[in-house]
């Protein structure tokens, strides 16, 4: 194992160490535990940065280490059956390591202040540790088994973090919902893994791809290959909150805001996208198409919902869903690098947005607390407004993030988004699915609109409550520094020196397309042609996106800043539409009414069935015998006395009848004897 991989292992396990320490001795450290966690993550960050550079400046090959975890000592269709696991570091991993550790570190830092005095302060940091560990695990593993393992662990840790304030029922519910909805996705993931395993008897990426490359197809049918790809994608649907499993993410906002920043902006939800990127080589054209549509639909739905939300975190949550849809769409259309890049850039500015909102909410809380107002919702943007002057740093950083997410030039967001849109155009050019780019651009506009709506309503204009505004202060350094770092990272030059095109930046240099493994007959457009086409579409995409984004921003200003257009009037005019969007397309209601209700209903029915019928038939306790018991008082004692069995129930009855011949009259007995004799004679003589 080469030294860099030992570093990678170190990076992986440092957060776990922090977790172990804090979970067992957290009580003892109390206030200190935050610092401890942060220190560990700082070290982690440094290591991963080091690893990043050493990877980037080394020759472009994958560092891989694989060993046999379980050997079943048997052979299935001439392949020895064993579970190989291991870790690998390629450029994607290196980047992801930095992203994860960086965001995680900043969140640790931010939380020092934000979570101060929390009931389970140390537990909180411990959970952050385990989460970071599992997330890094997903990133460094080189096989689907470990991937699934860490996948589940991420689910667990997010469950713990979302439900951090489990005294609140809503929080507990949200945690549960997140876990179970993810489980649904994981189910598909697991089935996909089963297909792969049964076919290739290995789960390492390299092994699988080389097998497919060698023309080995699951159950000899490309449809099964497509199915396998899509089933694995189900995992992504769950984790990356894609339609139709996006419902858990907004509820997950019940967790502490920094957690939202870490999990629901930068890392966990990105895991899905990462999974798709990892699986990219085995995805057939059909699979990619489906994925693209899933992404597009998600992006659209989420964006429409985001427009009408008033809770600042809800808005961000839906924008996250929408952006994730963007990434998935990007990967789906085949713009691999663009998708990954958007994942990275988005990680920075969305985390920033969440932390910023956190800082705002923090301030609002203090203010409200100060006036002893416990009814006003600290997260509702309508109660904010005019915070610009009061919290300048928060405002300016949030402005930068908003510009980035809206895809305004000179921001990182612009670069990645632009590439994705170009990709969609190229995609439609090749197979004429023009709806994809249309959605893409439309959503870009929507994004710009609702993000600026949030910005304007929350920060500009006037604050309607004088007394409250007086108590609002800028957050302390420990919270603002992370904001500033992330703001800096939201500028273009970190990714490409050319502010208008990323395609020649280092990112595109290093993050090259993986070689497609699937047979040419079912493969998507060959990479070279596709990249070529993207170049052609690039300028068009740039102009269109900038224009549409500008429109969105303009609309936002006219509506909410200059108040030229009355939002309320619109709302009234389009009441049904508004409520439809406000109620999030009624997805939760739908699911509750169908899946949840159905499951619970069936469960109840079955439980009854089990008690009454199965039990009744097989062992006849229950109503039948009870009824009899009432009928003949004598029976009850017998029933309780152990005639639990249905056969026994009949036995009891027949026994009861048989008794009646025992009349006590000797002659009756003799008659019976004679009858028996006669019967025998009949039997023989006939």
């Amino acid at each position: 194992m080469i030294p860099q991989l030992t570093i990678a292992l170190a990076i992986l396990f440092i957060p776990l160490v922090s977790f172990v320490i804090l979970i067992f001795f957290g009580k003892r450290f109390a206030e200190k535990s935050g610092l401890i966690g942060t220190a560990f993550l700082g070290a982690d960050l440094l290591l991963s940065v080091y690893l990043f550079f050493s990877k980037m400046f080394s020759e472009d090959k994958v560092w891989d280490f694989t060993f046999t975890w379980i050997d079943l000592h048997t052979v299935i269709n001439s392949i020895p059956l064993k579970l190989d696991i291991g870790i690998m570091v390629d450029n994607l991993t290196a980047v992801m390591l930095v992203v994860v550790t960086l965001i995680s570190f900043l969140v640790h830092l931010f939380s020092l202040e934000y979570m101060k005095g929390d009931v389970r302060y140390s537990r909180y940091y411990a959970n952050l540790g385990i989460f970071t560990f599992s997330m890094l695990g997903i990133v460094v593993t080189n096989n689907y088994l470990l991937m699934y393992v860490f996948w589940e662990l991420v689910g667990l840790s997010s469950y713990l973090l979302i439900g951090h304030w489990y005294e609140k029922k809503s929080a507990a519910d949200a945690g549960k919902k997140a876990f179970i909805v993810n489980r649904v996705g994981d189910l598909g993931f697991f089935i996909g893994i089963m297909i792969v395993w049964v076919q290739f008897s290995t789960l390492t990426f390299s092994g699988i791809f080389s097998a497919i490359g060698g023309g080995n197809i699951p159950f000899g049918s490309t449809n099964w290959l497509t199915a396998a790809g899509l089933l694995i994608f189900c995992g992504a649907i769950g984790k990356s909150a894609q339609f139709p499993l996006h419902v858990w993410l907004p509820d997950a906002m019940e967790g502490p805001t920094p957690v939202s920043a870490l999990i629901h902006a930068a890392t966990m939800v990105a895991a899905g996208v990462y999974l798709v990127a990892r699986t990219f080589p085995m995805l057939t054209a059909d699979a990619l198409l489906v994925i693209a549509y899933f992404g597009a639909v998600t992006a659209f739905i989420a964006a429409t919902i985001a427009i009408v939300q008033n809770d600042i975190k809800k808005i961000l949550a839906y924008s996250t869903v929408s952006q994730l849809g963007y990434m998935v769409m990007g990967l789906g259309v085949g713009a691999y690098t663009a998708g990954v890049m958007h994942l990275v850039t988005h990680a920075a500015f969305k985390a920033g947005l969440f932390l910023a909102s956190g800082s705002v909410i923090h301030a609002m809380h203090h203010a409200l607390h100060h006036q002893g107002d416990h009814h006003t919702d600290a997260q509702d943007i309508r109660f904010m407004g005019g915070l610009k002057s009061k919290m300048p740093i928060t405002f300016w950083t949030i402005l930068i993030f908003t510009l980035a997410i809206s895809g305004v030039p000179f921001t990182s967001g612009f670069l990645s988004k632009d590439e994705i849109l170009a990709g969609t155009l190229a995609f439609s050019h090749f197979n004429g699915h023009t709806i994809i780019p249309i959605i893409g651009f439309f959503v870009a506009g929507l994004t710009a609109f609702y993000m600026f709506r949030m910005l304007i309503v929350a920060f500009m204009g006037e604050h309607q409550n004088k007394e409250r505004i007086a108590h609002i202060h800028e957050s302390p350094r420990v919270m603002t520094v992370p904001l500033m770092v992330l703001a800096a990272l939201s500028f273009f030059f970190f990714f490409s020196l050319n502010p208008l095109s990323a395609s020649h930046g280092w990112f595109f240099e290093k993050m090259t397309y993986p070689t497609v493994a699937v047979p040419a007959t079912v493969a998507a457009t060959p990479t070279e042609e596709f990249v070529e086409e993207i170049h052609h579409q690039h300028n068009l995409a740039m102009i269109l996106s900038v224009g549409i984004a500008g429109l969105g921003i303009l609309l936002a200003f006219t509506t909410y800043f200059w108040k030229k257009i009355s939002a309320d009037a619109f709302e009234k005019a389009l009441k049904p539409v508004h409520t439809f969007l406000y109620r999030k397309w009624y997805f939760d209601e739908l699911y509750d009414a169908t899946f949840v209700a159905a499951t619970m209903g069936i469960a109840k029915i079955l439980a009854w069935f089990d008690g009454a019928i199965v039990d009744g038939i097989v062992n006849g306790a229950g109503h039948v015998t009870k009824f009899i018991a009432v009928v003949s008082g004598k029976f009850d004692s017998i029933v309780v006395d152990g005639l639990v069995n249905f056969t026994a129930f009949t036995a009891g009855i027949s026994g009861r009848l048989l008794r009646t011949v025992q009349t006590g009259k000797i002659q009756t007995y003799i008659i019976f004897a004679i009858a028996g004799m006669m019967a025998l004679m009949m039997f023989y003589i006939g």
Partner: protein
Amino acid sequence: MLDTILNNLSHIVPELIVTATLCVVLLAHLISRKSSQLLTILSIAGLFAALYSLTSNFGINISAFSGMLSIDPFATFFKIVIVLSTIVIVLMSRFSDEVNAEQKTIGEYYFLILSMCVAMMFMVGSSNLILMYLTLELSSLTSYIASGFTRKAKDSSEASLKYLLYGAFSSGVMLYGISIIYGLTGTLDIAGVNQVLVQGSANNLALIIASIFILVGFGYKISAVPFHFWTPDVYEGAPLTITAYLSVASKAAGFAMMMRAFKVMFIDSSVMNLPAGTWTLINGIHIQNALMIFSVLTMTLGNLVAIWQKNLKRLLAYSSIAQAGYMLLGLVVLSNDGFSAVMIYFVVYLFMNLGAFYVVLLIANKIGSENIDDYKGLGRRNPFLTVALAVFLVSLTGLPPTAGFIGKWMIFISLINAKMVGIAVIGVLNSVISLYYYIRIIRNMFLRDGVDQTTPVIEYPLAQKILLLSLLVPTLYFGLFFNELVQFAQISVSIFGSK
């Protein structure tokens, strides 16, 4: 002539000893009216002497008294069972308040027991139809009186009357059957009958009627459905000791006689090329499926009705009917291992059934009731006694590691070996049903609490403990080490030849 008779007499020494004993007992009672203890000692001594002299009959296989009586291992085996049970019964009677209450007539009691014993010992050996009838009657007559021994008690008297009428009736029918057989074959010696029948000259219809008539007699003696009706009433009414004796010894005698009669009369020993140890019936006599019906009816009815009993004596009566059903299964097989299975079952049955009755007796002595509901909470009041009863009941159910399991196991082995799977299934299902009522007693003793928790621990003398142990130990021992038992039974059955 005379010396042959004398010589033959030397083979029925055990019977003679018992006969002598009963005379002595009678005299002793006339002499000293009080000491019932003396009587017990005398009879026990006599019985043990008989038991000892029986051992000298091992391996002897002759037919004495011009073929009237055959002294063979088969008979010896059952004689041992009978004498053993008699010994146990005599001891039980010693401890039974019910019996000891009848101080004045106690002598008759032992006299009756012993004469029953003698009668039965002759029964198992008799190989001539008329002798069979006579011995059967002799044993019956004595049991009529014995079951009515506690004259004061109404139910006891009623029991004896019912027993009398039913017994006399069925033995009469049997006799009529015998007379027809005689007419058909011109002989009363069962071996002779067999020879005639094998030639097939006999009239089939008459033969069937006759054999059914005879079956009635046997059916009554072993209380097989539908000739069992007397059993519950008599068992309930008679003194507990007598009930126990009837349920084991007289049943054993009946079975032995029946087995001998059928094997020797109705089995065609000329048929060749059968699997070793299996027999075929003389054609025209399909007695086998009749027995099959009997056995199924017997065990099923016994079990089903037993579920409803509240009086323990009566419950045990029905349970003993059911047990007879299992034993009949062994007959149905018509093979050596079937028969040996029955014999093994009897040894096992001797211990577990007498054991159960004995505990019931001891408890009745104390709480003066045989009602199952009065057994609630006894587990606390006397662990040892109740645990022993539990073991006996479990053994009657036929669960390992008790002897009862081995008994049933051998029966089922013989059935499966004869590929009679269907009837075997009925058998095992019956043993499941039987669990209901056996477990009810156990439940009352251990799971339920008595009406009054204050009731004291039951105390009882060492002698009674020893007797209990001597019944308990074999019940457990044979469950795990049944080597010699099986061996003995198989040797004893093989007088019927390897065919």
